C-alpha cells in the first residue's frame, strides 16, 4: 500500500463487513514523541477468540473465495517496519479496535496520503452507517462526524446531493499529507 490512508480504508471496510454502523477513525500525531498513531474502531460483531489467534497470519482468512487474508498482516508489517506496532482489541458483539503506531519521521513510513478520498469512499459505500474522523496534531484537532452533518440537514440521507456537497466542503480542511 502506498499510503497509510489505504490501510485505513481496508481495515475500516472490514468493520463495515462485520455489520458496524459506526466507525471511528483517529489519527494522532505527537511531534514531541515523534509518534504517529492510527486507530480504527467499529461497533461490528467483533472477532471470535479462535480467529483472533491467527488474524495477522497472511495464510488465514475466513473467506472462501481465496486462501489468503492480507489486510491486517500488511498493516502490521508496515507498522513494525516503521519502528511501531499494531494491536487489535475486540469484544465479540461489541466491536473491534485496531491501533497502529509508527515512528513519525521513519524513512520507511508511507505518507498518510489522501484521507479525504478514503473518508468519502467509506461514507459513500456505507451510507446508512456513521463515520467519525478525528485528526489530532500540534496544530489542534479536526473532527468530521457524519451524524452531525446529517443532523444539520434534518437527517436527510448522506447521499442527498445537498448533504453530500456540504460534506465535500468539510473535506477541504483535510489535506493530503506526509
Amino acid at each position, binding site marked *: 500500500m502506498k499510503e497509510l490512508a489505504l490501510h485505513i480504508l481496508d481495515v475500516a471496510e472490514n468493520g463495515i463487513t462485520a455489520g458496524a454502523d459506526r466507525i471511528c477513525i483517529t489519527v494522532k500525531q505527537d511531534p514531541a514523541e515523534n509518534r504517529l498513531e492510527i486507530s480504527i474502531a467499529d461497533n461490528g460483531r467483533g472477532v471470535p477468540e479462535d480467529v483472533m489467534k491467527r488474524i495477522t497470519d497472511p495464510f488465514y482468512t475466513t473467506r472462501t473465495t481465496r486462501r489468503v*487474508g492480507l489486510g491486517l498482516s500488511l498493516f502490521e508489517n508496515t507498522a513494525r517496519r516503521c519502528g511501531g506496532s499494531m494491536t487489535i482489541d475486540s469484544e465479540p458483539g461489541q466491536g473491534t479496535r485496531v491501533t497502529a503506531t509508527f515512528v513519525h519521521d521513519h524513512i520507511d513510513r508511507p505518507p498518510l496520503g489522501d484521507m479525504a478520498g478514503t473518508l468519502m469512499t467509506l461514507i459513500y459505500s456505507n451510507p446508512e452507517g456513521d463515520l467519525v474522523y478525528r485528526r489530532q496534531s500540534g496544530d489542534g484537532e479536526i473532527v468530521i462526524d457524519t451524524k452531525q452533518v446529517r443532523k444539520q440537514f434534518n437527517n436527510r440521507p448522506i447521499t442527498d446531493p445537498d448533504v453530500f456537497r456540504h460534506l465535500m466542503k468539510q473535506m477541504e480542511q483535510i489535506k493530503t499529507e506526509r
Partner: protein
Amino acid sequence: MGKMTIDDLKKIKEQTSEETSLRHGAANVKITVHMGTCGIAAGAREVMNALMAEMGQTERQDIRVMASACLGMCSSEPNVTVAVEGEEPIVYQHMDANKMRQVFRRHVLEGEVQTDFALARG
C-alpha cells in the same frame, strides 16, 4: 380541460408509477466496486472517487453504488461489476478513474457494454 380518454389515464398511471419507483429508490443499475485489500492496493479508491464524481453530475435516481469485498480474482483488480436490470452483469477489470468514467457514461447511462475492459459476463 376536455373529457379524459383512456390514453390520458394510461399516461397518468405510467407517470405516477415512474415517480413512485424513483421515490422508493428502485435501482435499475447496480455498480459494485470490489474493495478487498487487493482492490484497494490496486487503486479501487480512485475508481470509487471517479464514480462518485460522475454520480454527482447525473440526474438519474435509479443507480446504486456499493462497495463489496474481493471477487477472488485479485490479479485483475480493480474490478467493477455493472448490473443493469434485466441484463447479465458485466465484470470490468484493471479499472482506473478514466475507464470508470467511460464505463459510467457509455455503459451505465447509454447501455453500451465496454467490451475492451470487460473480464467476464455473468
